[in-house]
């Protein structure tokens, strides 16, 4: 360490999307559950994805445990297109093109539309994932029509987006509409006025 002090995370900082180093490799928290058996100690159950290999592991951490943050270089890029399982991006500064595999993208692949500006995460000179804007707009390709005045039905219905991603939306959303998704939760946020 060259005099640079690392501020460690503790277990209570754990949340979805946090990036940490485990055994010298970068991992991202993909699922997180706080649990506390009656009067017992707080436990943080996590699923972590190795950002290089794409493999997931389950780990349980206790109150007070610490982690080294994975500090990854971020490069501003634009998503160009998808070809098979490969996603092509272009560096906004030097126009260099790179490819990221579907496994490395994880859930982000659900929200990538052409020309979307993202931050590509670099571990050394390897592109290992992307960071999306918190909100993206995507078009609804398929959903059941809304029957006005029908109050017997559930408060949501499934909808398929242009990326193939399926989520729950309010009943009033129609096919062809543009909606905003919160990429952190993957949930419907609002309808976009066009």
């Amino acid at each position, binding site marked *: 360490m060259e005099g640079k002090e690392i501020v460690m995370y503790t277990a*209570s900082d754990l949340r979805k999307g946090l990036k940490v180093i485990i055994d010298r490799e970068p991992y991202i928290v993909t699922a997180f*559950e*706080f*649990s*506390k*058996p*009656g*009067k*017992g*100690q*707080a*436990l943080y*159950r996590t699923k972590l994805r190795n950002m290089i290999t794409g493999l997931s592991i389950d780990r*349980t951490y206790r*109150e*007070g445990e610490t982690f080294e943050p994975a500090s990854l270089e971020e490069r501003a890029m634009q998503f160009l297109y998808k070809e098979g399982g490969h996603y092509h991006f272009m560096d906004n500064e030097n126009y260099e093109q790179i490819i990221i595999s579907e496994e490395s993208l994880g859930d982000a692949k659900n929200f990538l539309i052409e020309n979307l500006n993202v931050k590509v995460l670099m571990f050394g000179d390897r592109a290992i994932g992307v960071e999306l804007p918190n909100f993206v707009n995507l078009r609804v390709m398929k959903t059941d029509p809304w029957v006005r005045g029908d109050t017997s039905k559930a*408060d*949501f219905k499934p909808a398929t987006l242009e990326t193939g991603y399926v989520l729950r939306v*309010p009943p*009033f959303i129609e096919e062809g509409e543009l909606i905003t998704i919160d990429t952190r939760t993957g949930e419907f946020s*609002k309808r976009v006025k066009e």
Partner: protein
Amino acid sequence: MAKNWPLARRKKNLEERARLLRQIREFFVGNGYVEVETPHRIPAPAPESHIDAIPSGTWFLHTSPELCMKRMVAAGYEKIFQICRCWRDSERGSLHLPEFTLLEWYRAGGDYHSLMEECEGLIQSLARSIGLGQRIVFRGCEIDLSEPWERISVKEAFHDYTHISVVEALERNLFDEIMVQDIEPRLGLEKPTFLYDYPAPRGALARLKRQDQTVAERFELYAGGLELANGFSELVDGEEQRKRFQVENENRQSLGKRIYSMPDKFLSELDDMPPSAGIALGVDRLAMVFLNAEKIDEVVAFTPEEL
């Protein structure tokens, strides 16, 4: 459609929750209980290793109404219940809110077995009165509410569901992890289940079992793997309680947590308390069970993140 769609879509749940609260009150009043209110802001909570209070000025928001309600039982209030907000620091997850609602009740003359029977009666009557009948569906389980519910001791649960004994789990500091990963998910899947007789160190305010001093007369109630309530036969020995609180404070210190001052008034009055039993039941979680909700967020108007 309202701008606050998540709130708008919870309307049905919140209406059901209100009905549930009315029915809870009706059940207790009908059974001779008096509804009481005790202060939410107190000088200090009971020292317990893993429960942290939120400071409010130089005092704290209570983590449960336990100390005040027990002082009332000690002063001659024999059957009391309370529905109140409680606060626990840093508890947030799909089953936890740092501010939540507890139903707590005490009964002089009772013990933990009589409390278990009262739980059966309460939840059956709630299910009936909101039109659910004897079977409820929660987390994909069809749970049969007809009594008697399942009862399994902590020792048996470790034997049935894990590869190590309770004693070994405690020694290796694995008790909580095994509870969460291997035991809790199996409890209350067909019928609600009482997990009872906790290791003595896990029942800081509970009476020890006369026939086996290594366990406390404490139980937890589970439905569909979700912990709903924690009850016990009360420890009514002030001197012994003080010692146990000191041990809890030592644990807190070794975990780097703040130490809570001794609740002296409570401790001096505890000897007046007749043999009693008391229980705290999470109202939000009970609403989750009746509404088949996946997350605690679905049964409250606002989560902290939405404020």
